[in-house]
Every structure is written in C-alpha cells, then in structure tokens.
C-alpha cells in the first residue's frame, strides 16, 4: 500500500516538470575548429509556464532550442547532457521516435516566416499536412480543423484565407499562420525563437496576445528565445540570461529586472535607453560580443567586465544560488563566495598555483 502511494507520489512529481535539460553541451565542427555553442547548461520548465532565454548574437540561445528539437545540423553534435521530456530522454530516441514528438508534442516557431513557409503551397495545405501526419483525420476533417486554428490565432475570413499562398499574407499574418501550424497538434511545449523580431511593435504585441490566449486555453508551456529584454519582461515567468554559450543568470522575471546580480545582466539593462528618463549617456558594456569560436578563458565575460580580476581570467564560475531562487555565475557577487566553499577552494588553489609559477 505504502509502495503504491510512493509510486503515485513520485509519478506526480515526475509529471510536474514537462521538460528538463541537464548539462547540455552542443558543439560544431567548423573551419575555425570546434565551436562549443552551448556549454553545460541546465534548465527546466513546468506545465503552463513561460520561460525566457535571452542573449545577444552568438550566445547560444538558438542552438539550445535546436538541440531540444534534435535539429542540430550534421556538422554539430550534442556532446553531453540529457533532455528529458515527460521523464524520457529525448537524446536516446531514434529518429522516427523523435519525429512523432517533434511538431506534435514539442513544436517550434521561427523568426523568419518567409523561410519557414513553402512559397508554392497554400497556407492551408501546409497546416493540413502537419495535422494529418500527427492526428487521425481525413482531408476534410483536417481542413475544418485548419480553419478553426486560423480563427484561433486571429486570422479574419479564415475560410477564404486558408487557400492563400504565403506571399499573400503580411508578416504578422504569416507568423499567426505559423503559430496555428505549431499548435495544430496541441503541443505541450512551444519553442518560439525570436518570433517577433522581424515585426513592428504593434504587430509584436498582437502576436504575444495570441500566444497568451492559447496558453490559457491549452495550458502549454512556452519557451521564448529573444534578444529583446522588453519582450522577456512582458511575457516570461522566469528568465535565463545566456552569454558565450553559458547561462550566466537565472531567476524569476521580476528578480532579474528588479535586482540583477550578474555584471552582464546589469550592463545589458543599462544599455537600453528608457522612456521618460533623462539620460546623458548610456552606461552600457564595453567591448564586443565574443566570437563563439574563440571564447575567452575563465569567465567568458571577463574581458568586458568592470569587476574582472585575475581569478576571473582563470576560473570559470558555475551558477550558484545567490539569493532564494536566483542563481548567477560570478565570483564577485556577495553571496557567492560564502555559500560556495568549493569554488573558493578552487580559487585559492589557482592563486597558490599562480604564486608558485612566479
């Protein structure tokens, strides 16, 4: 009896986290050598949550999404880590098993709507095809379902527009159609990679309103990948900040924006001019975004960090809890040193080594 209770309990705990990524490392073979685009990152998402991954170009945010979808190109590979979806590791699945999950259980919306849609098929045909691959419907049922989906994402006259080609839709409409396609099989997780970057602000607000509505109706989890801190502030429950292939800070949205800990997050927030605030100068971040093929040693942010010391150049800090539910990877944060003896020992050892080298 007790055993049954225990299993039930553990089942319940198992299902809470929809997607769990642990120590994911993805690298690519390029002309410049092996590029570690994503380096040992972990995150998880629960049902109905919206998680943000924010970072600049080359931070590894898109590769993270493609790794979860198992869509890494042939010159790349997932070196290490696990990706558990509802308790089973996606990295151990065969290609055909993955195909039945991809697009149906976990689906994705991309930035460039023209590249994501086939120009020679109508919008309806393309959504139809996804529905018929994953759901048991005949052509007529699938067409009705497609019309319902297009209405759901707010396309007017869906019955007529279903036979339009992608070029007959505006950018915002195409993104709506792609969202319709992505939600056509009731996915548990929707990954939106820069879904509104190519769109105007007023259209961007419309798209997030649609996503929010669908999330309320279906309870799906959403991962938003973006460079835009304003988008993250508006739609995410919690945020991962990525830099140089690593997550450097993660917390609830309000804490990231209200009390950022990592010098990179702070610098990023200072880089954005604020409406209604007199500013003479923006106190942003010095230097350039690092090339993923030539990442700096130690903490990847140290060449641009105002607080960098020798320790930072040698020692790559791991994410540590600096406040409740708020983790950051920087040895210069107050809570960090006292909490984490291991790191301290490494630093001390490094120091000793440095001294003896001299």
């Amino acid at each position: 009896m007790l055993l049954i209770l225990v299993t039930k309990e553990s089942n319940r705990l198992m299902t809470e986290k929809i997607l769990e990524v642990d120590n994911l490392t993805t690298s690519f073979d390029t002309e410049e050598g092996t590029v570690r685009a994503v380096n040992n990152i972990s995150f998880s998402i629960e049902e109905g949550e919206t998680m943000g991954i924010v970072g600049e170009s080359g931070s590894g945010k898109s590769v993270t999404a493609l790794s979860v979808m198992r869509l890494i190109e042939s010159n790349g590979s997932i070196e290490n880590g696990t990706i558990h979806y509802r308790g089973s590791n996606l990295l151990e699945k065969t290609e055909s098993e993955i195909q039945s999950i991809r697009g149906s259980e976990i689906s994705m919306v991309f930035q460039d709507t023209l590249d994501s849609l086939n120009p020679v098929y109508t919008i309806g045909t393309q959504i139809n095809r996804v529905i018929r691959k994953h759901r048991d419907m005949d052509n007529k049922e699938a067409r009705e379902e497609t019309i319902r989906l297009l209405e759901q994402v707010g396309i007017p006259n869906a019955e007529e527009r279903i036979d339009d080609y992608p070029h007959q839709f505006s950018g915002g409409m195409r993104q709506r159609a792609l969202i319709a396609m992505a939600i056509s099989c009731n996915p548990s997780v929707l990954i939106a990679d820069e879904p509104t970057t190519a769109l105007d602000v007023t259209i961007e607000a419309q798209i997030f309103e649609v996503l929010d509505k669908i999330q309320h109706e279906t309870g799906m989890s959403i991962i938003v990948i973006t460079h835009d801190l304003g988008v993250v502030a508006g739609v995410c429950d919690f945020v991962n900040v990525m830099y140089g292939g690593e997550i450097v800070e993660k917390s609830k949205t309000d804490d990231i924006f209200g009390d950022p800990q990592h010098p990179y997050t702070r610098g990023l927030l200072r880089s954005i001019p604020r409406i209604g605030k007199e500013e003479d100068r923006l106190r942003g971040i010095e230097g350039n975004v690092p090339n993923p093929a030539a990442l700096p040693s130690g903490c990847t942010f140290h060449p641009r960090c105002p607080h960098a010391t020798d320790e930072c150049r040698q020692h790559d800090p791991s994410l540590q809890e600096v406040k409740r539910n708020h983790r950051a990877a920087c040895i210069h944060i107050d809570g960090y040193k006292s909490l984490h003896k291991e790191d301290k020992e490494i630093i001390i050892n490094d120091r000793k080594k440095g001294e003896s080298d001299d």
Partner: protein
Amino acid sequence: MTDKELFQVSGLKKYFDQSQGIIDRYLNDTDQVKAINGVSFAVERGETVGVVGESGCGKSTLARCLINLENPTDGEIKYKGKKFEKFDSGEMDSFRKEVQMVFQDPASSLNRRKTISQTIKAPMEIHGIYENSRDERVRELLERVGLSPDYANRYPHEFSGGQRQRVGIARALSVDPEVLILDEPVSALDVSIQAQILNLLKDLQDDLDLTFVVISHDLSVIEYMCNRVAVMYLGEFMEIANSDVLFSNPQHPYTKALLDALPQPVPELARKRKTLEGNVPSPINPPSGCVFHTRCPLATEECSESRNDPELNSIDQSDENHKVACIHVDEVTNDNLKVDSNIGNDGNYEVENFNS
C-alpha cells in the same frame, strides 16, 4: 525662415510607380505607392530631429529625399534657403559634402573589396580635400570613432557589426559634414553594442557641432537621441513635438498606441502592454480621410470622410512646436499612459555597492 534653418520641407510627396506587367503599363494602368504624402517640417542647425514609424511608413524614403537621392513627386525641399532644383553644380557639390548619411546595415554599405582606409578616403578624393594628409586623416577618424588606427588596412569582413558601423560613421565624417542623416543607425546591432554607438554619436555631435536627422522604428532610441520627434504613419506625420513633450504628453492616438505597444524592460510596464488592432493598410490605396482611422480606437464616421484628412495643427498656444493631426485631439486622455521611471529598477546600479 531663419538662418538657423538648414532644411525646410513643405508639402513633400513621393509616389513610386508599382512595377507591373507590360500590358498594364501600355494601358497606363499603374498603381502608385504613396510613400510620402504631404509632409512639412524644418530642421534647425544643431538639433536632432527624429522620425519614428513602423515599416512601410515612408521614413526611409524621407531620408533619401533629404539627401537628394529621390526626386519628390510634389512639394519642395530647401537647404539653407535654396531649393534643390535651383542649385548650381558648385552648390550641389557642397551640399553633397555637407550632408552625409549613415546606413542601417554596415555589412552591405561597405565595399568588401576595399580596405576600410580606402573606403574612408573615397569621399575625400571625390571632394578633393585633405589632399596631402589623407592617411593621417584616416588614422585620426578611426581613433575618433573608437577604432585602433592600426586597423586601417583591414577589410570589412575582419570587423564585427558594431565596428563596421563605426567605420560607416568615420566615412560619413571624413569630409567634415554639417548634417548626418542616420537611417536606423543601431537596429542591426546587439543591445550592448547599440549603447556604445549611441554614446559615440552623441559625443560626435557635441564635439563637431553636427545636426542629426535620425530615422528609426525604435521609440527608446529616438527618445534618447532627439530634441524633436515626428511620428509618421502611411506617409504622413501624425504628430510632431519636442521630445520631452511627445513622450510625456502624447496627443495623437497613434503615438499613444506606439508607446503602449513598446516593450519596456520593466516587467510592471511590459505586462500592461496594450495591443493596437489590425495591420498597416497598403500605401497603394491608403484609407480615405485620416489614414489612421481604420485602426484608431477613437475613430468616428467623420474621420473616414475624405474631406476630413486632418492637417498638423498646434494644440497649445504656448507650445507651437507641438502639432497633431487628429480631429479628436481634445478627447485623447492621458490616463492610460504613465511612464514612471521610478517603477521597477531604473538600471542605475551603484558600482560602489557592488562588492568585489
């Protein structure tokens, strides 16, 4: 007309013929894209004028008209009190030297087969200036825009996006211009790099007494850079005002909608983002009357009547710089726009508090 005015634009229109099949052209049945449809404003010496709007509103065409890359369909542009058409060749040369442009995409606006030194020298060669000191001048300009002079003989692909934009700025500065037209100067750059370029532009303006016209879709960039801002929609100005007034007391429903839709990096504000319904109509066949009426929350039947296309009018006698094109302007209340910089974290972190 004062000496201070560099540009005087009045009733500017620019229509493009939609390229169509030969039969349509034969039958003279071509559609026209009304990119700019009656715009008037002035740019004074030393100020920064911003033009903000969504894609397709005509803001880039306006920039191209200002540097005389497009011939207006109607209306006129005067530079230093003289119409473009009346320029003799000497005046045209000095106009081309005094007004320079910085483009959005630094990758495609630099010639990849030329070293950046060659690129920066080209305008000096065309205008025949700095004849004996061009190499020296290139080094000086590179330093001025924050690049090492040692980079002079490198090619554009050896630079990052932000560095390329610095090269584009150095090229524009090479002939000692008075006016820089900046078309989306930072929108292709990463956030942390945007701030560096914006700071650089402000420094250059202070040091070199430059006049800026900034074209952007990004309201926060416009607010940071500009003294005066025009809000453009479907080829027309909806509102023009001093920057502080426009952002604290917007009057046109479209300006308000843009500000409401702006995703600010402050969760309390960003979650209250409001949505403007509908899409931007086609500039081939813009709505009758007020072009914004199809999306406007205040629109009445009056607004759609073609005789009611509202002109820009001053709304406050004490502030003649603030003009709005809306017949309902009194009804626009300010209650739903509250930008309070005290909400959330304003991004000012004291370095002293940050223990190292």
